[in-house]
């Protein structure tokens, strides 16, 4: 088989681009023991530091100083599988992609043993092309990430000025003329009849606000102790009575005839203000 030629220019040899890529042919066995040495207990850490099988593969290739454009697939596959076996032996969990990659490597190895169809272009036929492409892409990303990391970063290498405050600025007058206001008013007047104002007229005597205020005050004065809101409501309270009672309570509080007392349990109770302090309660509010 003729040596396969990578169609792109520029060698990929990290981490030291200055070192010329070592010739792999005939040096496989020599490189292997060094590449495979794993300090005890370090495998887990090692595998964790990889984002996936592609990165492990790229690391193996660099460690063996192999040429990404001419991967000795048999050797890389052997080393890759050794790592996988070692991980399995130590009961480390490996994602399914690791096994998928192993299968892919095996497939490439098999296809490389098949004779090349004479008519086909060498480049298209090399079964390693797609793998090399993906490794190249990952290597590119890694170099780009490293380049980003060297850029000066805010809060690490420099500090920007945080915007200083300034006194309130005058607002731009809105674009509105008197005619706009007049037209708006006219439009409102020309609208179809509005519903009556949302005000409840309490005609029913026992629903009257004044009545409820008096009842409430008497209720609270009858026994000078703090009352809960529930206790001061009339029996069988409906929505409207509840609303009127609340309004009455608020009005009495405002006039300081009743007072709110903290019950020290996160709630409050109502008590009549001592008669000595009593102010004339205006029921005609």
């Amino acid at each position: 088989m003729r040596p396969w030629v990578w169609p792109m220019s520029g060698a990929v040899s990290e981490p030291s681009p200055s070192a010329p890529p070592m010739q792999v042919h005939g040096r496989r066995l020599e490189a292997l023991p060094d590449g495979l040495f794993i300090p005890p207990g370090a495998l887990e850490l090692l595998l964790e530091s990889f984002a996936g099988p592609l990165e492990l593969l790229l690391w193996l290739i660099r460690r063996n100083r192999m040429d990404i454009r001419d991967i000795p697939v048999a050797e890389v596959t052997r080393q890759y599988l050794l790592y996988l076996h070692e991980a399995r032996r130590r009961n480390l969990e490996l994602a399914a992609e690791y096994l998928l990659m192993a299968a892919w490597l095996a497939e490439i190895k098999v296809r490389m043993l098949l004779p090349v169809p004479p008519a086909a272009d060498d480049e298209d036929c090399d079964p390693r092309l797609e793998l090399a492409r993906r490794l190249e892409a990952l290597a590119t990303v890694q170099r780009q990430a490293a380049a980003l990391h060297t850029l000066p970063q805010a809060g690490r290498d420099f500090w920007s000025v945080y915007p200083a405050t300034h006194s309130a600025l005058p607002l731009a007058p809105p674009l509105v003329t008197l005619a706009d206001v007049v037209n708006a008013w006219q439009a409102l007047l020309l609208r179809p009849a509005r519903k009556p104002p949302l005000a409840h007229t309490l005609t029913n005597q026992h629903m009257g606000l004044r009545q409820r205020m008096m009842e409430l005050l008497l209720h609270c004065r009858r026994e000078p102790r703090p009352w809960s809101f529930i206790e001061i409501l009339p029996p069988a309270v409906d929505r409207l009575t509840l609303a009127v009672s609340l309004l009455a309570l608020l009005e009495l509080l405002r006039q300081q005839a009743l007072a709110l007392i903290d019950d020290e349990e996160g709630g409050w109770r109502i008590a009549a203000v001592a008669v000595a302090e009593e102010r004339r309660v205006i029921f005609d509010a």
Partner: protein
Amino acid sequence: MREALLALFLSSAEPLSREQLASICDDNPDCAGWEAELDTLLAVGEGVLQLVCVAGGYRLQIHPRHNAILARLHVEAPRPLSKATLETLAVIAYQQPVTRPEIEHWRGVAVSAQIMQQLQDRGWIMVAGHRETPGRPALWVTTSQFLEHFSLVSLAGLPTIIGAAEAGCEEEKGRRDPS
């Protein structure tokens, strides 16, 4: 030392307290005399910047003499009022003094607090008192700035809407003197 203090204030999103400054500067030989410098900064500022005392410490502020140019950068171009805001303003102008529930009645929809705030920020409306009914609702009126903006001498100068006066009065009577 003044420069280091300025650098600290310029880079900080929050006001810096004397305690914070002390924890940074006290054991730092480069920062000797920082307290005197802080007092100087407080007294005379530095260039366009003033050091002001706010809750939680000190913070830099741009001298108000630059407000005119800052306004050109930060103040948005004038925009027309929204329909809702315009209607609210019209009700207050023609019906004042008026409560918020009354405005809502005229407009037929709730008036958002945002609209009232917007008109207040413009200085066109204000609270002139409270109606002595339960809840004591605020009574809204227009301001002299409102008159000024629309070149009106007085509220009497508001254009009369033909046919509307009666409707308005009817409404007023109906609402204010419930029989």
